[in-house]
């Protein structure tokens, strides 16, 4: 719509390199020509040199960082602000005209039944995804923390789903969940349980995508937990062993309290990830968003699904951004950075 800011994106490399060269040359000439200067002259020269150095640094800085900064401005910051503008419009994607409606889109999102359904689904998905991957991840990390051969290979295997395409993973699980031909149906039949018809029911749909998300994500939690566990001082645990504290007692009295920063860190990142990273699984397993329209999915469905309500979609995007901003602010405020960045 307003592409001006993006036109400047191409790399200004050539132009700036020349500017640097020409600015450097007269600088030397001036310095060489000044004969035994007094204090004031010296001061002025120093100032001039400083200014030259600064402008030379600026040219270099723009040469090095400019393209990236321009791209970030054009494709991250500009969208952020134009979304705020679009969010005040009643506007269909592709339509030439739009009606300003003030904050109506926001009010609709927070008060309409369909908007509240999005919050409900997002809440359940986030809760299930975060609790599931963190609890299972911690259990796996506790096992991998033992000194047994083969644990490095096991760690690699457990982490691997995290780097795989969400679309591919979702297709595989789609097959596994098939109530008539899927592997899970066969597995449940062994125990005499009939497979639910996952796809037909909105609630089962949500359970299904949570399971797949947890499967993909728990390796990340396990590896971060493992790093946390390995930083628990061994002498503390040995002291507890000498006091004949059992493994369960050791875990709850020593390990878990020392693990609190890791738990908090994972809690925050997992909440953010589950709100932003799940789109490919959701879209592939439940293309219409039946029971699975979390906030990111809703942004997509509203503007690019059947409704084409671009203004409403933009409002949801703005709400999502500020939600994430709030969560990150809490993290920065309350989490000690050194715990994670060493």
């Amino acid at each position: 719509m307003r592409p001006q800011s993006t036109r400047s994106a191409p790399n200004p490399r050539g132009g700036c390199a020349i500017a640097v060269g020409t600015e450097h040359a007269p600088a030397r000439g001036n310095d060489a020509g000044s004969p035994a200067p007094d204090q004031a002259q010296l001061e002025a020269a120093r100032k001039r040199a400083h200014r030259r150095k600064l402008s030379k640094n600026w040219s270099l800085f723009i040469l090095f960082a400019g393209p990236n900064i321009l791209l970030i401005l054009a494709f991250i910051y500009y969208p952020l602000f134009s979304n705020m503008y679009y969010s005040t419009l009643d506007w269909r994607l592709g339509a030439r005209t739009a009606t300003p409606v003030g904050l109506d889109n926001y009010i609709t999102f927070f008060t309409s039944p369909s908007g509240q359904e999005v919050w409900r689904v997002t809440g359940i998905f986030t809760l299930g995804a975060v609790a599931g991957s963190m609890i299972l991840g911690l259990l796996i990390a506790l096992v991998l923390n033992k000194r047994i051969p083969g644990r490095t290979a096991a760690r690699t295997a457990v982490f691997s789903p995290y780097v795989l395409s969400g679309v591919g993973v979702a297709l595989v699980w789609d097959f596994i969940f098939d109530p008539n031909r899927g592997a899970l149906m066969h597995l449940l039949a062994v125990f005499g349980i009939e497979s639910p018809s996952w796809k037909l029911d909105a609630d089962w749909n949500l359970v299904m995508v949570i399971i797949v998300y947890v499967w993909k994500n728990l390796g990340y939690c396990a590896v971060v937990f493992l790093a946390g566990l390995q930083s628990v001082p061994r002498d503390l645990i040995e002291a507890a062993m000498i006091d004949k504290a059992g493994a369960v007692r050791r875990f709850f009295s020593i390990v878990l309290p020392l693990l609190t920063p890791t738990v908090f860190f994972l809690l925050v990142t997992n909440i953010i990830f589950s709100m932003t990273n799940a789109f490919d699984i959701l879209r592939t397993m439940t293309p219409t968003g039946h029971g699975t329209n979390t906030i990111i999915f809703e942004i997509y469905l509203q503007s690019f699904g059947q409704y084409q309500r671009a203004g409403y979609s933009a409002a949801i995007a703005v709400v999502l951004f500020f939600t994430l901003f709030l969560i990150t602010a809490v993290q920065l405020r309350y989490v000690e950075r050194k715990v994670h960045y060493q």
Partner: protein
Amino acid sequence: MTQRPTSTPAQNPGLIAPKSRVRHRGELARAFSRQNLVDTLLTGYLPILIALMVIVLPLAWMISSSFKPPHEIITLNPTLLPQEPTTENYAAVADRVPLLTVLGNSIYVTVIGSSIKVLLAITTAYALVFIRVPGANLIFLGILVALMVPPEVSMLPNYLTITSLGGYNTLWGIILPGLGTAFGTFLLRQHFKALPKELFEAAELDGAGHLRKLFQIAVPVSMPAIATVALVTVVNEWNNFLWPLIIVDRAEKMTLPVGLNLLQSVEQLTSSYGILMAGAVMVIVPMLVIFAMLQRYIVAGLTQGAVK
């Protein structure tokens, strides 16, 4: 939780003298005692085995099913391995979508996109750390905030921008909006900041400029960190789904994840799961191979980038 109180002595020898090579007979005997072996199996290997099965079996099932003919897919008595292995599923994928073109697009987008992103991340991080200008910290803060903006938020305006630039259904339209890199810049800036200043002093005495300091000193000593950024970028570019889904609707310009999405929408029969699994293999296996070979860098990068 999975550890039981009785397992207390199990790790004792290793704990007390982790590096000693000489082990006393008593300790050895204890380490191989029946009690200890049972403990290790029950609290160590058994849970690991269960975890591994949960992780590996779905992927094994995918690969196996991709070689099964339709009647082995719909059978009520499936076998783990295909009884009559066939590659017809892969041929069927190629029949429905222009497979080689789509694969080529994915490789093109991944290679070009990642190369530019990594280069931009290196130069930006270098500028932020080594080129003194007022306000550099403010710029860094701006990049940190950008790190928090998920692609879904910028999707609609970027769609309008790229469409108006004529980038709809083009590969550059897929690549361009993702090129600005906050993640790589952040990671490399932290790394460059930790480099010892002495490294650069000798070069400065020789009159080396920033370009030489960057490419002859900073980059060579930072290869592991750069590899980490590059690999994480490659993984993300390869798996990227949302943006290519929006900006492309012609099969010849699709990347693999979007091509699979198309495949899924034309294959609705139960018997066609084999074809879908063949498609899934093509998008999953390349990343599995890269991950298996270079997991150290990838894990480091993904677990370090607190806010991706």
